[in-house]
């Protein structure tokens, strides 16, 4: 139609926009909730089902909705919370007695069955739960795993022999026993992890089948309960329960605000739109003391960053070569220049977050001695050029390049950093024993025991032993530590194992992480624990006007 005015088009578009904006959701009437709730920034959790959650964000939210069997005091000892007592005579059969009177937020009582059903669901292979490996120590775990008869081929895997763990037995409504396949003195500490939380009967639509939509509004036995559902990519809101029998938190609710970008979270922190950010991005570290002053704090966590040697490669077979490279790195310079002291230099193989940590257990091979390093390297005939592989989808390029410069300066050999696009590529190459050079890796503990570092990383069949380090004497000592009667005895054995690592140097310990966190003006008593989670019971909202 001729002459149809484009102005009408523009007016129409503007009208549509205004209409859409006007129809935007609730918005303003949440302000009442905001004054009594603390707003904590997280990344979008992958899952909120207890047995499938292994990353920090999901774990934090579960901490508010559930009450764990044990948690840790300042000495990193496990203290009973939902459990009345957890005892064992032989470290193999553990009797767990629950405190009476606790309920889920839908008024179901918490019983032993809730734990047993949840753990069986988590351990059952075909359910594909990410936290499944935590149940490996329980007797009967192997029967719940299916075996794929032809590996990568198209044949279906067999159904597992059983779907209940033979090591779990109910004694009465408030008591059950856990039988481990091998005695382990530190089992009590392992139970603090969120995969061991109970699930209400309302979570299952049929035995062994989780109800659709449970993950979007989990029902837990904790101090808070869900308000509404999980608004993906936006927020999760929880409010305090009045009928909770344990220690009540001081805040009336928590709003977990979801951010994809740390920088935008930081912008909101300064503007006061979010109350706590548990990780200040490295780019803002230089300005954060000016922006936040006293509200910027640090606390230890269990992050451990290191560089591993692929011992299956010819050049790295010789321990002298590894020791030389370790002495060539100036850890102090790296942490103060690149990380602005948000991380600390590591001279041990386990983190200061665990009992049994000894500073400088690595000894002289972790001290920066460039001259000695060069002599040792040449005498041992190390490779004439080195590479350090890292995953480019993380913030590693800067420090890997710096480390290479240090090595070049100390040893006089060429060193380059090689970025793999994805972390999974790096791991796959290492597992297939392809020549990747040295690899950058990070580790976080699952529970505060030395074994959480020593076992998976350095034992011959360790689940995270990507570089093929194998020392039978070391394996034996770790096993003996596991089987020891009391925690102090375990620690002694594990320390002896760590001494072997100091001699063999399978990895170069580089840095221990710290929580660098900030909070807004209206919050106080903010602390972030070893697992990078905010302590929800201590945090307060300052009620000044």
């Amino acid at each position: 139609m001729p002459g149809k005015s484009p102005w009408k088009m523009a007016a129409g578009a503007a009208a549509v926009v205004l209409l859409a904006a006007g129809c935007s959701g609730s918005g303003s009437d949440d302000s009442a909730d905001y004054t009594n709730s603390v707003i904590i920034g997280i990344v979008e959790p992958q899952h909120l089902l207890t047995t499938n959650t292994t990353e920090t964000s999901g774990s934090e939210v579960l901490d508010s909705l559930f009450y764990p069997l044990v948690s840790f005091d300042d000495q990193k000892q496990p203290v009973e919370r939902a459990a009345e007592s957890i005892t064992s005579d032989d470290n193999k059969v553990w009797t767990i007695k629950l405190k009476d009177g606790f309920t889920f937020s839908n008024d179901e009582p918490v019983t032993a069955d809730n734990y047993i059903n949840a753990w069986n669901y988590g351990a059952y292979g075909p359910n594909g739960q990410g936290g499944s490996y935590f149940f490996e120590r329980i007797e009967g775990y192997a029967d719940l795993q299916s075996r794929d008869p032809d590996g990568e081929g198209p044949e279906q895997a067999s159904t597992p022999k059983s779907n209940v763990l033979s090591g779990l037995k109910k004694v009465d409504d408030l008591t059950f026993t856990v039988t481990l396949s091998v005695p382990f003195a530190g089992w009590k500490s392992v139970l603090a992890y969120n995969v061991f939380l109970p699930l209400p009967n309302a979570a299952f639509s049929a035995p062994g089948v989780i109800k659709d939509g449970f993950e979007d509004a989990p029902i837990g036995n904790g101090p808070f309960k869900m308000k509404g559902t999980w608004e993906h990519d936006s927020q999760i809101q929880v409010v305090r329960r009045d009928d909770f029998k344990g220690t009540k938190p001081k805040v009336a609710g928590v709003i977990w605000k979801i951010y994809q970008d740390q920088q935008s979270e930081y912008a909101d922190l300064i503007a006061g739109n979010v109350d706590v950010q548990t990780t200040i991005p490295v780019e803002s570290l230089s300005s954060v003391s000016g922006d936040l002053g006293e509200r910027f704090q640090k606390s230890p966590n269990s992050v451990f960053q290191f560089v591993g040697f692929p011992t299956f490669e010819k050049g790295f077979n010789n321990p002298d070569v590894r020791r030389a490279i370790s002495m060539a790195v100036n850890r102090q310079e790296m942490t103060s220049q690149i990380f602005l002291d948000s991380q600390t230099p590591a001279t041990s193989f386990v983190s200061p977050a665990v009992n049994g940590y000894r500073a400088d257990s690595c000894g002289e091979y972790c001290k920066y001695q460039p001259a000695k390093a060069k002599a040792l390297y040449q005498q041992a005939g190390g490779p004439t050029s080195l590479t350090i592989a890292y995953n480019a989808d993380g913030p590693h390029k800067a420090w890997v390049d710096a480390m290479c410069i240090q090595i070049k300066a100390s040893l006089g050999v060429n060193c380059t950093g090689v970025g793999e696009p994805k972390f999974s590529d790096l791991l796959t190459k290492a597992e297939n024993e392809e020549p990747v050079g040295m690899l950058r890796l990070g580790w976080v503990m699952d529970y505060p025991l030395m074994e959480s570092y020593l076992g998976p990383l350095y034992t011959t069949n360790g689940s995270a032993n990507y570089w093929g380090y194998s020392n039978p004497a070391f394996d034996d000592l770790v096993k003996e530590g596991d089987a020891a009667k009391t925690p102090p005895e375990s620690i002694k054995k594990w320390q002896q194992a760590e001494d072997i690592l100091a001699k063999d140097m399978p990895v170069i310990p580089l840095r221990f992480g710290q929580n660098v966190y900030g909070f807004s003006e209206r919050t106080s008593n903010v602390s972030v624990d070893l697992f990078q989670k905010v302590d929800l019971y201590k945090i307060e909202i300052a009620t000044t006007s």
Partner: protein
Amino acid sequence: MFRYLVRRLLQMVLTFFGATFIVYALTFANADDPIQALAGERPITPSVRQALTERYHLDDPFLLQYWYYLKGLLTGDFGTSLTGRKISAMMTQAWPVTIKLALLAIVIAAGVAIVAGVISGIRRGGLFDNVTLALTLVVLALPIVVLAPLAQLIFGIKLGWFPPTAGRDASLYALLLPAIVLGSLVVATELRVTRASVAENLRSDYVRTARAKGLSRRRVIGVHVLRNSLIPVITLIGVDIGGLMSGAIVTEGVFNIPGVGFNLLRGIRTEDGPLVVGFVSILVIVFLVVNLLVDLLYAALDPRIRYA
């Protein structure tokens, strides 16, 4: 016209299948271990890996996986992301805020571009013309990854004129800054098209006739020239809308707006193949429909265009 429509619709179907096949093949070729990517830096037990692989048919041959995907598409099921959420549910949640943002951006960009373009077109070579051209060049040259955080820092934090982030239920005011940033991507081209179109129309015969008739300058430009000059711009705006709906990846990430781009960014980062493919399929449909509408609009506006 009817035959034209039918032909276009058939072409759309073909294009849709071709485009989604390419996206699917690329994502498939890129993802060699999405299960490990999901787990991050933790080990995964063989059992869990087994279960997830079977659930998502990850060890089936490529064509079989593509067949499952097509079957789902044709029944309206866009699949499930690797974290277990339904793509269609994610889309319904993500879209409203992206539409708001895209429309707001277009209104701002078009407003600025048309006004400035008309003035520049009238006084070609003048001070205003050169200044606006230079300014838009600068804005065009700044990559969005620099422009967005910079705008957030200056206007959101330091000056405090706008809130630094906008959430899902953001007010119009909170969306203003991201919309301006987004609009800056398209304002330069729209301005130039307007300017060229106005300049060309000012020299045409009917304008000379109108002036000879003694019409006021305001009426000549405001009624006659404008109407005809805006035709190419309107079609360009239509195409830009389609592009902005899908492409605000960086802006949505920086301003924390949980829309389509935000989800795409997350899907790419976490190598969530089903998520990326699902969203892109929907976006392909949106783009095709918008393009068809724009072409029809062009014919409606300009009577010299006829479709056979």
